[in-house]
């Protein structure tokens, strides 16, 4: 018998036994530590910034080129938008009186529908640093963490006060948010201007869908506004989510469409949203 081969085989068996033991540890840990998984998250919180820093160092030419292409594309879009806005401005200037009336009516309607809010919350402005969309999970990282006051359960809105995601994990200097498309998203909603309540469920790549429990007969029409409700005691009420596209699908804002968000600071005690 070849002793070298035997020793090599023995080493392979020892390695297999060690990794097998680690599998058993993971399975027990999954049962015991559910649902917080503190050890897992502390390992990830330690190594993610290190791996990202090394990755940034190694991949800057690729990412730099990508950013330049994206900016050129954005500039082209902005030029088009500027032209459109100029045309709109000249029209609005021509009929300013109508604009003022429309603005007043718009503010009045927004107040009546319960959309215009935010004044009660302090906010933290954060940049989206990493889009982690993968299969049916859509999460993203922001560059603010617990050191800045970001806590699990807080919500992120766009600068147009539109819901973007919910903080599901906060490290000291970064936080991970779950986008509304994520298949684990399940939030309480309300039809703006009515007392129809329901839940919105993420579907991965397809638009999130809503189901109503307060009025099963309710048929959402295209363009109806959907806002958050605090019926489950998790999210603050009245944050604008999006418009109904068809029977039950809602057009929501994706983190890929924006680069910055505002985190609304509120008391998350007892908030177990994950």
């Amino acid at each position, binding site marked *: 018998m070849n002793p070298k081969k035997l020793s090599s*085989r023995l080493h*392979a*068996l020892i*390695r*297999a*036994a060690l*990794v*097998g033991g*680690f*599998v058993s540890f*993971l*399975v027990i840990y*999954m049962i015991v530590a559910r649902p917080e*998984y503190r050890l*897992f998250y502390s*390992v*990830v919180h330690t*190594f*993610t910034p290190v*791996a*990202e820093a*090394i*990755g*940034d160092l*190694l*991949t800057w030419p*690729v*990412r730099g080129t990508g950013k330049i292409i994206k900016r050129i594309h954005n500039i082209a879009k902005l030029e088009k938008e500027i032209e459109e806005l100029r045309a709109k401005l000249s029209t609005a200037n021509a009929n300013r009186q109508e604009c003022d009336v429309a603005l007043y009516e718009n503010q009045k309607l927004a107040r009546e529908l319960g959309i215009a809010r935010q004044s009660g919350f302090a906010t933290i402005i954060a940049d989206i640093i*990493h*889009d*982690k*969309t*993968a*299969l*049916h*999970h859509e*999460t993203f990282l922001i560059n603010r963490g617990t050191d800045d006051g970001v806590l699990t359960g807080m919500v992120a809105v766009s600068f147009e006060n539109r819901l973007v995601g919910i903080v599901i994990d906060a490290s000291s200097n970064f936080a*991970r948010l*779950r986008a509304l498309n*994520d*298949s*684990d998203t399940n939030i309480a909603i309300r039809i703006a201007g009515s007392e129809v309540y329901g839940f919105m469920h993420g*579907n*991965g*790549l*397809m638009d999130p869908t809503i189901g109503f429990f307060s009025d099963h007969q309710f048929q959402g029409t295209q363009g109806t506004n959907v806002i958050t409700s605090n019926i489950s005691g998790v999210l603050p009420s009245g944050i604008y989510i999006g418009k109904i596209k068809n029977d039950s699908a809602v057009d929501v804002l994706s983190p*890929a469409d924006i680069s910055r968000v505002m985190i609304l600071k509120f008391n998350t005690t007892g908030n177990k949203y994950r």
Partner: protein
Amino acid sequence: MMHNFIKYFWTAFPFLLTVMLWRLSVPWLNPGGILAIIPMFYCSFISARPYFVPFSILFCFLMDYSFGTVFIWTLCYCVYYAVMNIQNVIDLTHTKENGLFAFMVFLGIVISLISVQSINLLNFISGVLTFSITCAFYIPLVRLIQGGQK
């Protein structure tokens, strides 16, 4: 001096490649840095490198974090590793196409486990597309790692 540098570079290359592929995650083409599983698989099962297994386990954690899953990548990797080392019927080090078919089985299992959590047409297409893209990148990336070895 230069020779030593090149030697160390190619020794570290699979590690660096893993970090790069994980960092260059983009939706559709490399969701969650899934392409990083290629050097991890090749350097753990087909052409084993020292210290690559603990490194791979760590990156499986990071991939689990990216995918929003709890230990699916880590568990599948560890189970696959334990099974491949505990028996001597299947020897992946001598398989055709540098273990492409073994990789497809591994990847197929993981993607199925993740995709089954939310089944709809678009998610299914996304799963198939991710599987196809990752498998298509397997041979070129393996050739790149082998190029350094030679």
